[in-house]
């Protein structure tokens, strides 16, 4: 049986016909929309490489059935930059060498963006490590990742202060 669903992906409304309900959000993004920035690492919810924002919250797209997310608002790594201006978290990852091979990086960045929205870590490196524990980096670039998140958080705090001043 075919199932029709509509999703908003990086700001654009998209309609899909699914001929099989087994399609995950991860596979839909990669195979149907060719948004291959979202990575398939373990495909079992353990590595975080597939992290995306669904309705503003970070989740593992490998463990989410597309058919169950009718009407959801999805943001992937392809949707965070503004034309040629990188998202502050992307820029901070470059500035602090927050990666080596780069495979986990889209998931790390989406997770960091989600974490900053959750406002549960602030500028405490211990809290950042705890709140980013769902993203594995087999190259071991964790030190740079924490530094990048700290810088991005500081930039966000500063711009929030400017706005409220």
């Amino acid at each position: 049986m075919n199932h029709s669903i509509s999703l908003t992906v990086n700001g654009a409304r998209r309609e899909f016909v699914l001929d099989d309900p087994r399609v995950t959000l991860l596979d839909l993004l990669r195979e149907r929309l060719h948004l291959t920035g979202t990575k398939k690492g373990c495909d079992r919810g353990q590595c975080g490489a597939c992290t995306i924002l669904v309705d503003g919250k970070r989740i593992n797209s490998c463990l989410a059935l597309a058919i169950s997310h009718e009407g959801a608002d999805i943001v992937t790594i392809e949707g965070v930059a503004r034309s040629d201006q990188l998202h502050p978290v992307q820029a901070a990852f470059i500035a602090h060498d927050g990666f080596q091979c780069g495979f986990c990086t889209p998931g790390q960045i989406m997770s960091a963006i989600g974490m900053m929205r959750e406002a549960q870590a602030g500028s405490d490196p211990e809290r950042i490590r705890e709140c980013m524990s769902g993203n594995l980096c087999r190259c071991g670039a964790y030190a740079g990742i924490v530094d990048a998140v700290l810088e991005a958080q500081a930039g966000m705090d500063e711009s929030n202060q400017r706005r409220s001043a």
Partner: protein
Amino acid sequence: MKPFDYVRPATVAEAVAAAAQPGASYLAAGTNLLDLMKGGVSRPDRLVDLTHLEGLDAIDRLADGGLRIGALVSNADLAHDAAFAKSYPAVAEALLSGASAQLRNAATVGGNLLQRTRCAYFYDTASRCNKREAGSGCDARGGENRTQAVLGWSANCIATHPSDFCVPLVALDAIVEIEGKNGRREIALDELHRLPGDTPERDSALEPGDLIVAVRLPPAARGFAAHARYLKVRERTSYAFAVVSAAAALRIENGKIYEARLALGGVAAKPWRARAAEDVLRGVAPTADAFQEVAWRALTDAKPSGDNAFKIELARRIVVRALTLAAAGTPARMPALPASPFASTSGAIHA
């Protein structure tokens, strides 16, 4: 993954009818179920998607002082609800010590209760497992079994229930509201999960079609907010299941314990309420000696099911530590590393 039919019911009654059929399974977030389906461990013919049902995602303060948590509330939304965390701090700490932020954002209250064991032999379809396939045998018994059960296990199954959330919930006498073919009923959380006995394939007391619609905390559960902790020993500090864990909650007045609650995680096929051990603390001062006595009482019936005798001593020590920290008072803020006995900020007094 085996093909399945997808059903999206419009009402709870439709959901129950659709899921009462053989081979049907409910789908909430799917963070455990999809993993099991990808591995061929769970092979449902039909998924009944609950995520679009109305009215299952609210946290309601009840007139009698209790709290009702809808089955579709996410683990993260519940843990980060400020009023909830203030009233039930050990429950919030347990939630935040489980899984990863991504999984907590998706995973639901009902799904957490019904998650399956993480026993490696249950997951490995090439191994014999009585829980996955009734009567096939148990390769965990002679296998790598250092994290398996030390309480309530049987010759047929030595798996543990992996939930953190359920441990303080069972300590606080949580109640599970169930909608079934014959209408609404409720049972104590302590009655939901089953010990394996001769039928380890049945995890819970639920019948086909039964749907958990809410978890309720009775009014008395709020009385422990000032002295409550959840502690969890893991193979690593974050994003790991408990080797052993303990929820301790005390009501202390005038230097004496009026009431104590204690439950253990990672030790049995269910969250393990240690009622007989709680009685040790009635009317006594919160001292190290009393807590040692509680720990011995709580593990009296414990037996290794393999290379896991160390878990019994570890459980005793985590009980003493959890009680010691609970007696010292619930921290004003959630610890930076929730439930970690090794956290630099936990203020631990080493027992």
